[in-house]
């Protein structure tokens, strides 16, 4: 890579956007720099399932021909998008073989918003099949590797998006978060990841996994960049009945208005401390909280007493919804169809059995089991009752403070293959992220330094009130600004 390309891909999204608007850089230069970086890093990290390659250069040249447009806040900015979101004319696999070469004729709402804002979509990022996983090892194609150490996982399920952002392939990416799938990979890859309030971003065009849990959100290298992307993708959409018809706050204004953390009460849930957390994670999170106090925040001890039940409740509710949502993959209207079916039933069964990977089959069957007659009350209804108790915990805690803080993951990135043989052990990795989705609240993860033992990134989660993304981003921006961000990862063999 040339020095110029390296310098360009190291810029923040906000910075490159401003330089493009001032014509200090052309869209073609910036896009070419990203394509160079993709070519240099993809062999080591496999963050992309589809690289649009040269096609995006033509789009960039067309933008340059028309000139910068002040009405387009992402004019000329190259981004990537998780392969769970439909992209008109570009293959969308959701990390699964069952979708084959499915090429949608429409953009997801959030993708359309990016394009309308002038962004260049470089490609689609790797993910755990149907977003089911915490390491991106459940991708039907290949595991993505962590750009800070390619022997380790990037987290999941939006591991391709996090790796792509951390490696400097793009200036931001869209991921999806059903149980931590934006925040946890952001944590493991040292970037910023925001899961908005349920209903803030339309799910139209998102391949559904757990419909009452799924939200789309940005992954970026700075908090300001996440705020910029959220400003673009947030808003009401009549095509998603759960999309909120509430005004979108001025997130950039909220960031500009907050210079320190005076008056901010940070609640630290007792359940997010101590046992089960790797000491290097605890130490980095504690140092971040100490910094927050220096910046004027006060620390409040709070409780989320039903946290120990969240894994059990989540792994009933999410598979139940998945078993219903994934019934649509039957080999009839799109995707993969089994060869020479005997009859229609055989076509359904074999197309699904051959097309879905093990973890997806496991969750479909778990969901089918907990929804089946005789078990529904004991599992699904019970889990939904626990879900209410979990949300009430958050409401009580957030009445006593403005933001809740804790680790996003109990450990830093683990080695490839370490947890794949024991699904339950992998589920346990989600202990700090799942409950937020059950409650439907917003949360973001910021990098707070490298673990003292592993040298891998540690992330701190900041969780807030429904539709309180502005306050959350503003506080996170101050703290992250003081702590610094790790920047672009080496993303090469032997790193």
């Amino acid at each position: 890579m040339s020095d110029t390309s390296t310098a360009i891909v190291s810029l923040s999204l906000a910075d490159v956007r401003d330089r493009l608007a001032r014509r200090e850089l052309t869209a073609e230069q910036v896009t070419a720099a990203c394509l160079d970086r993709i070519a240099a890093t993809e062999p080591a990290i496999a963050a992309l399932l589809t690289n649009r390659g040269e096609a995006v250069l033509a789009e960039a040249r067309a933008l340059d021909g028309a000139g910068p447009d002040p009405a387009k806040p992402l004019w000329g900015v190259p981004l990537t998008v998780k392969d769970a979101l439909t992209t008109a004319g570009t293959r969308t696999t959701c990390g699964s073989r069952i979708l084959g070469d499915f090429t949608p004729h429409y953009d997801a709402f959030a993708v359309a918003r990016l394009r309308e804002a002038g962004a260049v979509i470089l490609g689609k990022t790797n993910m755990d099949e149907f977003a089911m996983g915490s390491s991106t090892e459940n991708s039907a194609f290949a595991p993505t590797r962590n750009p800070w150490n390619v022997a380790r996982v990037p987290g999941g399920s939006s591991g391709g998006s996090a790796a792509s952002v951390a490696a400097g392939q793009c200036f931001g990416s869209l991921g999806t978060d059903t149980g931590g799938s934006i925040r946890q990979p952001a944590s493991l890859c040292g970037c910023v990841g925001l899961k908005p309030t349920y209903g803030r971003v339309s799910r139209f065009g998102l391949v559904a996994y757990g419909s009452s849990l799924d939200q789309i959100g940005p992954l970026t290298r700075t908090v300001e960049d996440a705020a910029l992307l959220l400003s673009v993708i947030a808003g009401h959409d009549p095509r998603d009945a759960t999309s909120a018809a509430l005004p979108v706050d001025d997130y950039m204004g909220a960031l500009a208005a907050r210079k320190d953390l005076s008056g901010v009460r940070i609640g630290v849930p007792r359940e997010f401390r101590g046992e089960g957390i790797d000491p290097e994670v605890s130490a980095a999170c504690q140092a971040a909280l100490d910094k927050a106090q220096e910046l004027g925040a006060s620390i409040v001890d709070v409780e989320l007493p039903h946290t120990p039940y969240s894994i059990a409740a989540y792994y009933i509710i999410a598979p139940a919804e998945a078993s219903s949502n994934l019934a649509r993959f039957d080999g009839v209207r799109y995707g993969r169809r089994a060869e020479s079916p005997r009859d229609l039933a055989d076509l359904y069964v074999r197309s699904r059995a051959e097309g879905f990977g093990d973890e997806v089959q496991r969750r479909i069957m778990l969901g089918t089991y907990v929804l089946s007659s005789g078990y529904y009350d004991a599992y699904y209804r019970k889990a939904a009752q626990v879900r209410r108790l979990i949300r009430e915990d958050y409401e009580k805690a957030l009445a006593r403070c403005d933001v809740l803080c804790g680790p996003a993951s109990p450990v830093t990135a683990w080695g490839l293959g370490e947890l794949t043989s024991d699904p339950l052990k992998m589920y346990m990795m989600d202990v700090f992220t799942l409950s937020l989705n059950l409650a439907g609240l917003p949360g973001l993860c910021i990098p707070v330094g490298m673990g003292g033992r592993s040298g891998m990134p540690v992330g701190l989660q900041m969780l807030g009130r429904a539709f309180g993304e502005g306050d959350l981003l503003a506080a996170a921006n101050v703290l992250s600004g003081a702590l610094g961000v790790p920047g672009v990862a080496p993303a090469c063999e032997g790193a």
Partner: protein
Amino acid sequence: MTTISTEQVAAIARLARLAPDEAQLETFARQFGDILGYMEMLNGLDTTGVEPLYSPVQHATALRPDEAAPRCTREDVLRNAPEADQEFFIVPRIV
């Protein structure tokens, strides 16, 4: 400890239109035993009188005028089908 038999897994698989082989049945049975066993912890929590929460939506659902509008063509919809003619999806004969 919860025990799930391979016969139970096969029955669930039939409902879910899946067809695990013998080796997969064994693995899934063991894993479901572990996972459902873990979930038994919920029984230790008294939820009498707690209203289940099925969706986190608290805002009012927005209504829109019930107006028909074209969104895609028949060609768009059929383009990704494994088998189709100009008008229909084609499946094995059912009658």
